[in-house]
């Protein structure tokens, strides 16, 4: 668990040598296009991206999908699916993934669980990336005491271990939310935690890139032509940061999906009866540990989580390597 963040920092620190594929005359290709070509040349990345799109469609159309498959909804308790001892029944034709201890269909809950995972993972990462990029840009461009204060604040958040920070905030905001009603308990709080845990990595990496970019000739040229700081920021630096920012976001999404699941597993994330993978694993785990052998409602939500995270990681991995190769940093 937790893989992306340190890889992002590594990327910003240094770049590996020897590009793996030769793309001909690099000097005519923009960094964004190069990134896209690298992505297209990797079969694993393409398959993963297709899987992610399918997953997104399933998540958005969850009610329809559950209807088409013909299983009962995620919160329908069906006592007739429990056997004569009141124990859940395993995978069958009517319930492909079996039912859980309350007689709820596991497949339907896994499908609905994708909604929360993707919502928190993608929204949280987007907010964190925008916030981190803004902080990193301002710090890198203005320098001086502004840089010291902003980067100090970023380091302060980095000092907290991710899951523990989430545990503390999640527990504090569990009852009635926080921030004067802005952040509601449940999904809102989890997204808030995800943002707090991931924006420092983006901010740090963006600042490093800005610091190396601000001495480039094209920034000098713009400045000597009389461009204002804000123009340099928006028109000169930001376009050069788009490719890294997209990569950072893709790399952070799987980390954040795992963080969300971990928080729900620990009881400070999404709470019952909302279907959520981490929380399903938690419930199944308690049953398994007390000797109930109903493996199916432990295995399936975990597999869904694993495959989702793996798909994002495969795409992120290819993009990170592409970003790190020297051909992208000096076209």
């Amino acid at each position, binding site marked *: *668990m*937790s*893989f992306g*963040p*340190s*890889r992002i*920092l*590594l990327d910003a620190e*240094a770049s*590996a*040598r*020897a590009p*793996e594929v030769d793309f001909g005359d690099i000097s005519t290709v923009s960094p964004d296009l190069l990134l896209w070509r690298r992505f297209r040349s990797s079969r694993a990345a393409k398959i993963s991206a297709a899987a992610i799109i399918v997953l997104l469609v399933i998540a958005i159309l969850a009610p329809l999908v559950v209807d088409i498959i013909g299983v009962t909804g995620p919160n329908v308790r069906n006592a007739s699916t429990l056997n004569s001892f009141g124990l859940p029944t395993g995978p069958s034709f009517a319930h492909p993934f079996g039912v859980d201890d309350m007689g709820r269909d596991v497949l339907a809950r896994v499908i609905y669980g994708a909604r929360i995972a993707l919502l928190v993972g993608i929204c949280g990462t987007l907010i964190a990336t925008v916030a981190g990029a803004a902080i990193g840009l301002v710090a890198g461009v203005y320098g001086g005491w502004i840089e010291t204060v902003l980067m*100090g604040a970023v380091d*302060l958040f*980095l*000092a*907290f*271990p*991710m*899951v*523990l*920070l989430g*545990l*503390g905030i999640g*527990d*504090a*905001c569990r*009852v*009635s*939310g*926080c*921030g*004067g*009603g802005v952040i509601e308990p449940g999904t809102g709080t989890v997204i808030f935690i995800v943002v707090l845990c991931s924006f420092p990595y983006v901010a740090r990496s963006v600042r490093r890139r800005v610091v190396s970019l601000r001495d480039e000739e094209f920034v000098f040229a713009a400045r000597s032509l009389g461009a204002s700081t804000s123009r340099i920021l928006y028109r000169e630096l930001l376009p050069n940061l788009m490719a890294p920012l997209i990569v950072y976001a893709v790399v952070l999404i799987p980390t954040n999906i*795992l963080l969300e*699941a*971990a928080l729900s*597993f*620990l*009881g*400070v994330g999404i709470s019952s009866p909302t279907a959520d993978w*981490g929380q399903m*694993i*938690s419930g199944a*785990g308690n049953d*398994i*540990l007390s*000797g109930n*052998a109903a*493996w199916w409602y*432990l*295995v399936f939500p*975990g597999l869904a*989580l*694993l495959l989702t995270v*793996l798909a994002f*990681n*495969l795409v992120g*991995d290819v993009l990170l390597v592409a970003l790190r190769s020297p051909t992208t940093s000096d076209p």
Partner: protein
Amino acid sequence: MTRYILRRILLAILLLVLVSALSYFLFTVLPDADPAQLGAGQQSPTFLGYMKEIFLHFNFGYSYRYHQSVLSLIVDRLPATLSLIVGAGLLSVALSIPVGVITATRRGQRFDRIAMGTALGIVSMPVFWLGLILLYLFASDIGKIPILPGANSYAGLTADPGQWFKSLILPWLMLGATAAAIYSSLLRTRMLEVMGEDYVLSARAKGVPEPRVIWRHGAGAAIPAVVPVLGLEIGGLIGAVVLTEVVFRINGVGLLSYEAIHHSDFPTVQGTVLFVTMLLVIVRLIVDIVYAYLDPRVSFA
């Protein structure tokens, strides 16, 4: 060197103060309902009072559930957490150094692809789910192949060394593999960079045998270069430690805070989060100082 160390220590002290201040803000000011009041009708402390308690009296709060200071609860449970971390740490180092170095020297070959694919799989694995699956398969009480002690079987090192070792095998393997997956791919990246350096080329040119080039010139430079990143990674792994303790019911600091959540024992949650974070600040300080000794260039930067 002395100046560098002194500056690092001062910065760490400042960070400790700021971390405490931020935790006061996040856990007391930010929540709409004051969690301390929800618990036992107590007044939560003022900011200055809070800081004074932490830095003058080392008071991290008072547990509603145990009627004991949070600090003493943490100290009681620290040995279990440290046993877990030290064992898993040693295992991950023993695994990741050979894997990281060999994959880098055989880039693109079968071993590299299999090892890095496995690493990506482990990293994508929710550690709490893996733990439950392992227990379902191998735990002596509920497992299908009952060969190892299951959850809730942890015993202290001094109380029962045999049981201590056996009960930690599964958690060590799980946590060690997780850490090794991260470390080995970090090391592989560094190693690839180092092997492209000119001095490696010149070592080869003057006829140094290849194993010596790889291990002395390559790994000798790549391994220390990973150390500063480890300091940051520890933060991520603490999360995995908490989850491991919860799954295997190892009576450590992570399980303490987990149980506190489920008993609305908010001061214990807040106290453990702050204490562990402060401990981490100090650990990172030590890593930095050790690193400065290993690599004198750092203190000039």
